[in-house]
C-alpha cells in the first residue's frame, strides 16, 4: 500500500506543477449519453505513466490528453470498439486495463476457471477413491471375525436381550 501510494504519486504527481482533478469540468461533454460512454471507456484505459491507474482516476497530463482524445473520437462518431482499436494501434495493448483474449493471454484468462474445474475434479476423484477404499476395507474386514470372536459377539448379544 505504502509503495503503491508512493509510486502513484512519484510517477504521476511529480510530473505536475499543480494537481488537477481527474476529469476536469472543461472536458465533460454536453451530451450525457456520449459522456457516459466516455467515462465507461476511460475506466478501462490505463494512464501509462502511472502505477495501475485508469485515465478516469489519474491526474497526470497524459491521462488528460487521453481523456480528451477519447471524447474527440466519440464526438466524431466512433463506436466504443473503434475508439479502443485506435488507442491500441497508437499506444499498444499496454493501454488496456483488461487485456484482450488472445493466445498470449490465454493462461491469464483461463487461470480462475481452470483452477476451479481442476479443484472440482480433484475433489470428486478423492471422494471416489475414499469410497472405494472404504468398500474394499469393508469387504476384507467382514469375514475377519474368528470363531472365538463370533462366540463372544453372540454372548454379548444374548446378554443384551
Amino acid at each position, binding site marked *: *500500500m*505504502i*509503495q*503503491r*501510494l*508512493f*509510486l*502513484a*504519486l512519484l510517477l504521476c*504527481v*511529480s510530473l*505536475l506543477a*499543480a*494537481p*488537477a*482533478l*481527474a*476529469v*476536469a*469540468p*472543461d472536458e*465533460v461533454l454536453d451530451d450525457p449519453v456520449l459522456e457516459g460512454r466516455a467515462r465507461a471507456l476511460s*475506466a*478501462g484505459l*490505463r494512464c501509462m505513466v502511472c*502505477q*495501475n*491507474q*485508469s485515465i478516469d*482516476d489519474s491526474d497526470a497530463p497524459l491521462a488528460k490528453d487521453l481523456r480528451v482524445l477519447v471524447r474527440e473520437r466519440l464526438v466524431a462518431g466512433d463506436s466504443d470498439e473503434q475508439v479502443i482499436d485506435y488507442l491500441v494501434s497508437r499506444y*499498444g*495493448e*499496454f*493501454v*488496456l*486495463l*483488461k*487485456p484482450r483474449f488472445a493466445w*498470449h*493471454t490465454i*493462461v*491469464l*484468462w483461463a*487461470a*480462475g*476457471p481452470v*483452477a*476451479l474445474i481442476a*479443484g*472440482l475434479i480433484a*475433489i470428486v476423484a478423492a*471422494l471416489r477413491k*475414499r*469410497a472405494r477404499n*472404504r468398500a474394499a476395507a469393508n469387504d476384507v474386514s467382514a469375514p475377519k471375525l474368528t470363531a472365538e470372536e463370533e462366540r463372544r459377539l453372540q454372548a454379548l448379544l444374548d446378554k443384551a436381550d
Partner: protein
Amino acid sequence: MIVEFGHYALVLAFALTLVQSVLPIWGALQKDERLMAVAPPVSVMLFLLVLLSFVVLTGAYLNSDFSVLNVVENSHSAKPLLYKFTGVWGNHEGSMLLWVLILVFFGALVGVFGGNLPADLRAVTLSVQGWVTAGFVLFLLATSNPFTRIANPPLEGSDLNPILQDIGLAIHPPLLYVGYVGFSITFSFAVAALILGRIDAAWARWVRPWTLLAWCFLTLGIAMGSYWAYYELGWGGWWFWDPVENASFMPWLAGTALLHSAIVMEKREALKVWTVLLAIFTFSLSLLGTFLVRSGVLTSVHAFATDPARGVFILGLLCIFIGGSLSLYAWRAPMLKQGGLFAPISREGGLVLNNLFLTAACAAVFVGTLYPLVLDAVTGEKISVGAPFFNLTFGPLMVPLLLAVPFGPILSWKRADLGAACQRLYATFGLALLLTLVTYWAWGMDKVLAPLGVGLAVWVMAGAISEIVTRVKFFEIGFKRGFARLVGLPGSAWGTATAHFGIGLTVLGIVTASAFQEERVLTMRPGDVVELAGYQMTFEGAAPRRGPNYTEEVGHFSIRQGGTLVAELDPSKRIYTARQMPTTEAGIYTTGFSQVYLSLGEGRGDGAVDVRVYFKPLITLIWIGCVIMSLGAVFSIADRRLRVGAPKPARKRQQSVAAAE
C-alpha cells in the same frame, strides 16, 4: 554510539537465530529434553534483542539524528512527532525491521504460551521459525541495514513522503504485518508437523487460534489500507486491484480457506493433508507479497534487473522456504493417515466447497498479478491487468461462494439433508427476495445486477442471523430460555455468525457504493450551490493556510439538507514544503452509513475552483463489515474450547502402553 548498539543487537539476534535454528530440532530428533528446552528462552531473548534495535532506530527518528542515513532520507526536524514515530516504518529498511520484530514476537509468544504443546512439537516449530527469522535478519544486515551512518551529516532531512504523513500510516502497516507475519507461525507448525510426521486433531486445535489471530489483523490491516487510500488519494476509490493490494489480499484468501479447513481437521480429523498444504501456501503468499513490494519488481522488471541485490536476496529466501516446504510436503504428506469420511452434502462438504472457491479465486488473483511481469520478462510484451479484468474473473467466483455461505453452518457433520437445510432458510430467502424487489422498485430496471447484489448481501446477513436464531430455538422454547441458550452458545458459533454477517455487510457496501454512487464534476465560484442526492453544497470560498510542514489552499463548503445546515467541510490541496509535493485532502461528511465526498481540483482564477462531489451510499459498510469480520475472529479465539487445551496424545499413548503391559 547508541545507534551502533542497535546494530549490534541485530547482529547478536542473528547469532541467536542460528542457535534457535539448530539446537531445538536436533534435540527433538535425538529426544534430548535439555536441547529442546533451549527454544523458549532463546525465542524470548531474540524478541528482546530485535525490540532493542527497533527502539534504538525509533530513538534516532525522534531525536532527528541526521547522522543516520535512514533518518536523513525519511525524516525532517519540523515533522510532527507522531510522524517522526511512524516514519520509522514508512521506508524499506524500517518496515523490514518491523517485519522481523513481529516475526520474533510471534516466536516468543509460542515460546511463552506454548507450555501445553508437546515438547518436541514446540521445539521443532520454534526451530522452523528460527530458520525464517535467520533469513530475514540476514537480509536486513546484508542489504537493508537501517543503522548505516553517513560521514558528513546534513543539517536537515529530506522529509517523509507526504502521502505517508497520515494517521493511516501509524495503523495500517503494523496491522498488516501482524497479519502477514502471523501466518509464519501456522507455517512453522505445518512444517514441524511434517518433520515429526504427526498431525492430529490436537495439532489443528493449536493451529487454529494462531490462524484466527493473524487473519483478524490481516482483515483489519487490509480494511485500514483501503480506507486510507479512499480518503487520501482524492478520487474516492477504495480498492484498485493494484499488485501491492493483491499482495496482501492473496494471503487473506488463502488464510480464510485455511481457517475453514482447520475446522474440519479439528472436528473430524479430515482434510489433514490439504490443511497443511494451505498453511504452507498462506505464508508462502505472504513471503511473495513481501518480495513483490520490497524488491521493486512491480515498478518494472528492468528496474529490478538493474539493482537486484534486495530482490534477488528475497527471491532466494522465497525459493528456499517455499521450495523446501513443498518438497518436504511431497515427501512426508503421503505418510499421513487419512481422517474421517464424509458425504458430499455435509458440513465438511460445505467447507470443502468454500476452500475450492477461495483457492480458485486466489489462483485467479495470483495469475492476474504475476502474469504481466512474467510475460514482460519472457517475451518483452507489455500488457496491463487492472480492475476490469479482476472484477470479471474474481467476481463470478465469489457469487456461488456467497450463495453457499448461509448453508454451511446449518449442515450437519458427516451427512446432511439439503432439503431440511433449505427449509430452514425459507425466511432468509424471502427477506433477500423482498429486498431485491424493493431495490428494483426504488431504482428502476436500468441497473439489472445491482439489486441482485443487494439481495445476495441480505441473503448472507440474514443467513447469519437465522443460524443463531435456529440454534437457540427461540421460537420453540420461548424467549427467556432462548436467551439463556443465546448466552451459552460457544464462542465459535458466535464467531462464525458474526464473521458471516460482516462479509454480508461488506458486500452490501460494495454493491451500493459502486452501483448507486452519484457524482458531479464542476467549476464553482464562491457562493455557488450544487445539489446532489438531496444535499445542497455551497462553496463559501477558499483561503490559504500554513501547517507545520506544508502550506495548503483550503476550500470552505457548507452542506445543507432542506435548508438546515448539517455539516461544514474543508477539503484542501497541500504542498509539502520539503519535497514540494502536492496532495489532496478530501472533505468527507458521514451521514448514517453513507458519505458525501468532496475534493478540490485546479483553481481557475478569481476564486473559481474545480470541484468533484460524490454521494456514496452505504460506503462505510465496506469497512464496518471488515471490522465485524475481525470481531468474529475474536469471538472464535475466545472460545473456551480453544483455551482449555487439546487432549494430549502423549497421555493417550502412555495409557495404551500401560494397558498393553
